């Protein structure tokens, strides 16, 4: 709206308010004056006498009826038409007439003329100078007429100058000058106030519109965000520092089988077996340094069943409080796929190993066949036993992997795998060097999976030396604070891995081998297995020297017991954040 127009509206409203208020003031004042004049008449001249007889004095009747007549119309208009221009002019006239009546009833006492000046001051409350003019004209006319015909009633004396009315009127004008000036100033101030308020309203409206627009944008953004979150395939959780859920998406409810209301009354500990308040606090510290973390674990549904999950964690500020944001992904299917891939990779290895095995078996069998033809009893028992062991190891390796972990000897695991590695080595011109450190601590792990690590790394090393070379397999104990590690190194003197490819070799399906010779899953599976053992996998490579280093943590006896106990009860994945592998 136009500010000037709004200013005029506000000014008019303010003026109407003042006029209405002043009308009510005068309504009360005039009624009070009327009653006051009646009381004064009763007090001063209650009766007129005729000898011993008396009757009500005419002043009393004048106060009642004439005063009433003067008061009637202004009061009626103040009631029926408050705030209107004619009303305040009639009130001004009535007030001036009341002054005339009072002056008359008081015998023209000069003191009563103060009523005129007081009335003008009250009329100035209207802040309308025209009202003062109306009252002043009535006063002047009263003085002029009564001063001419009955001067004693207005001046208290009989003989006065014909211009006495002008003297009285001049004093009224004198007061009017100041009152009119005051009225004009007030009007200007009212206009200024109205203008400022109109400006303020305009600014406020602009701000409101801006807020409305931004609120709509925010609402739209919030809706889009809500749609994204609610329709996400993963579960989102927002939890406070104590682990109490603050919010979650629909997928979270579906995943866990709880209603949203139920989850809002629960904590992280209620749905995460093995999770504790201490772990939560440790997690907060870790996140405050790292910013985010990825962990795997298990979650429990409402029906008590558990399922493997991958949890991406972060910290966020919500309403001034630090909160956890968790993106939980059900990895049951992935786990099954990984198991199948491991088995597939293993069978692929078996296929390749079969050639070596056939070659190994072929020679003893040829000997056995030759000698058997001569019915000779000189069979080489050692070769037959070696064949048996070889076939046994192959069967063991090909067996479907079990995820059960236990306390195992890494050296023993390596030695069992070496029987298979040796068959490969014999088919090439690669020489094998094995250096296993004695007295290594036991490790917590899956024997079958660790054998797969050794076999795959050895096989890759052999493949990297098509023209022959040396394959070295060694173990050692790396003692350091706070953790000690058992280290497995598989080194070759092959062609090496270009530095540009080092970043990619752990990615699934990445391979440099010809089609049909490699699946590209070997190193990614090794990496996965090592991570699950809380270990690290490093590689350094240059032409003629490539070393893969697997480090597995050394557990203390107590840690070992706790882990085993946990594995027995629930198997909650790892008890600490899984670090990413380093390349």
């Amino acid at each position, binding site marked *: 709206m136009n500010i000037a127009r709004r200013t005029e509206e506000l000014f008019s409203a303010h003026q109407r308010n003042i006029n209405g208020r002043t009308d009510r003031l005068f309504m009360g004042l005039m009624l009070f004056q009327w009653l006051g004049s009646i009381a004064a008449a009763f007090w001063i*001249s209650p009766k007129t*006498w005729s000898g011993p007889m008396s009757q009500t004095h*005419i002043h009393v009747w004048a106060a009642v009826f004439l005063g009433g007549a003067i008061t009637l119309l202004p009061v009626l208009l103040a009631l029926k038409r408050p705030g209107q221009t004619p009303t305040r002019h009639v009130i001004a006239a009535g007030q001036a007439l009341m002054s005339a009546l009072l002056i008359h009833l008081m015998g023209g006492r000069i003191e009563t003329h103060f009523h005129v000046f007081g009335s003008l001051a009250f009329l100035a409350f209207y802040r309308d100078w025209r009202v003062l003019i109306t009252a002043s004209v009535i006063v002047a006319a009263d003085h002029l007429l009564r001063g001419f015909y009955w001067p004693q009633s207005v001046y208290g004396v009989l003989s006065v100058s014909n211009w006495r009315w002008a003297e009285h009127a001049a004093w009224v004008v004198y007061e009017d000058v100041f009152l009119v000036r005051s009225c004009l100033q007030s009007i200007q101030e009212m206009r200024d106030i109205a203008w400022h308020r109109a400006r303020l309203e305009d600014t406020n409206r602009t701000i409101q519109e801006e807020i409305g627009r931004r609120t709509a944008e925010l609402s739209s953004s919030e809706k889009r965000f809500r749609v994204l979150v609610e329709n996400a395939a993963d579960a989102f959780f927002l939890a406070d520092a104590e682990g109490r859920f603050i919010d979650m998406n629909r997928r979270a409810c579906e995943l866990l089988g709880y209603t949203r209301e139920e989850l809002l009354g629960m904590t992280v500990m209620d749905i995460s077996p093995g999770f504790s308040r201490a772990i939560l606090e440790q997690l907060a510290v870790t996140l405050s340094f790292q910013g985010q973390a990825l962990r795997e674990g298990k979650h429990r549904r409402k029906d008590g069943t558990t399922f493997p999950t991958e949890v991406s964690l972060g910290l966020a500020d919500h309403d001034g409080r630090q909160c956890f944001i968790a993106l939980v992904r059900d990895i049951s299917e992935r786990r099954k796929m990984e198991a199948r891939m491991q088995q597939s990779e293993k069978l692929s290895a078996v296929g390749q190993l079969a050639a070596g095995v056939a070659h190994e078996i072929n020679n003893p069998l040829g000997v056995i066949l030759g000698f058997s033809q001569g019915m000779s009893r000189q069979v080489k028992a050692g070769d037959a036993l070696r064949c048996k062991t070889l076939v046994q190891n192959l069967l063991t390796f090909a067996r479907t992997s079990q995820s059960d972990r236990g306390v195992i000897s890494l050296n023993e695991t390596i030695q069992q795998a070496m029987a298979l590695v040796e068959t490969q080595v014999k088919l090439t011109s690669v020489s094998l060097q094995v250096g296993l450190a004695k007295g290594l601590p036991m490790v917590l792990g899956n024997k079958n999976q660790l054998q797969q690590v050794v076999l795959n790394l050895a096989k890759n090393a052999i493949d990297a030396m098509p023209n022959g070379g040396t394959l070295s397999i060694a173990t050692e104990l790396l003692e350091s604070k706070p953790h000690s590690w058992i280290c497995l190194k598989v080194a070759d003197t092959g062609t090496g891995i270009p530095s540009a490819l080092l970043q990619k070799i752990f990615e699934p399906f990445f391979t440099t081998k010809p089609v049909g010779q490699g699946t590209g899953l070997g190193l990614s599976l090794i990496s996965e297995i090592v991570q699950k053992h809380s270990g690290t996998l490093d590689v350094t490579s240059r032409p003629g020297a490539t070393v893969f280093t697997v480090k597995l943590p050394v557990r203390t006896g107590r840690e070992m017991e706790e882990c085993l106990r946990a594995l027995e009860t629930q198997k909650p994945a790892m008890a600490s954040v899984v670090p990413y592998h380093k390349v």
Partner: protein
Amino acid sequence: MIRIDLWTAVSLWLSIVCLGMAGLQRYETKPGTAAAAPVRWAADSRIAPPAGRMILLMALHPRCPCSRASIGELDGLMARARGRVSAFVLFYAPAGAAQGWEKTGLWRSAAAIPGVTPLRDDDAVESRRWGALTSGQTLLYDAQGRLLFSGGITSSRGHSGRNQGTEAVHALIMGEKTSPRGTPVYGCALTAARPKVDGGI
């Protein structure tokens, strides 16, 4: 229902008020019954005749509100006369009225004026002797007992202030010649019966 235009109502209102004011004015300026005062000192009066001093007589109804102005004017006159005149104020009391009936505020005001003697006038006997029928009637006799002035010393009912009566009396006391020797009297009737008597000198 009759709907009256605002300006008609205002005109009607102003007319009523003006008529009321005029009626009131007419009442205020309507003089009471004039006195037929004896031109010589009434020998049968209980007030002693002048003995070398002028005497001012005033008849008042003690309960007439209009007569306050008369007492006020008398006070002014006595102050200005500076002892040249003795004054007696006859306060009406109805026949058989208890003692003290007449002792109102007017009595006390009169008594407080130096040179003024208030007297109770039972049944207006003394007032009638002096021909006074309206409260505020003032008579001035010279030292020889001759009537100098008879009339009121206010310009209308209850209105004090300079007026012809006061000025005439003052002039006569001061020995000056003055034209009006009689003025209208404004006040309550001293007696219930108002015989129609022409007053004034």
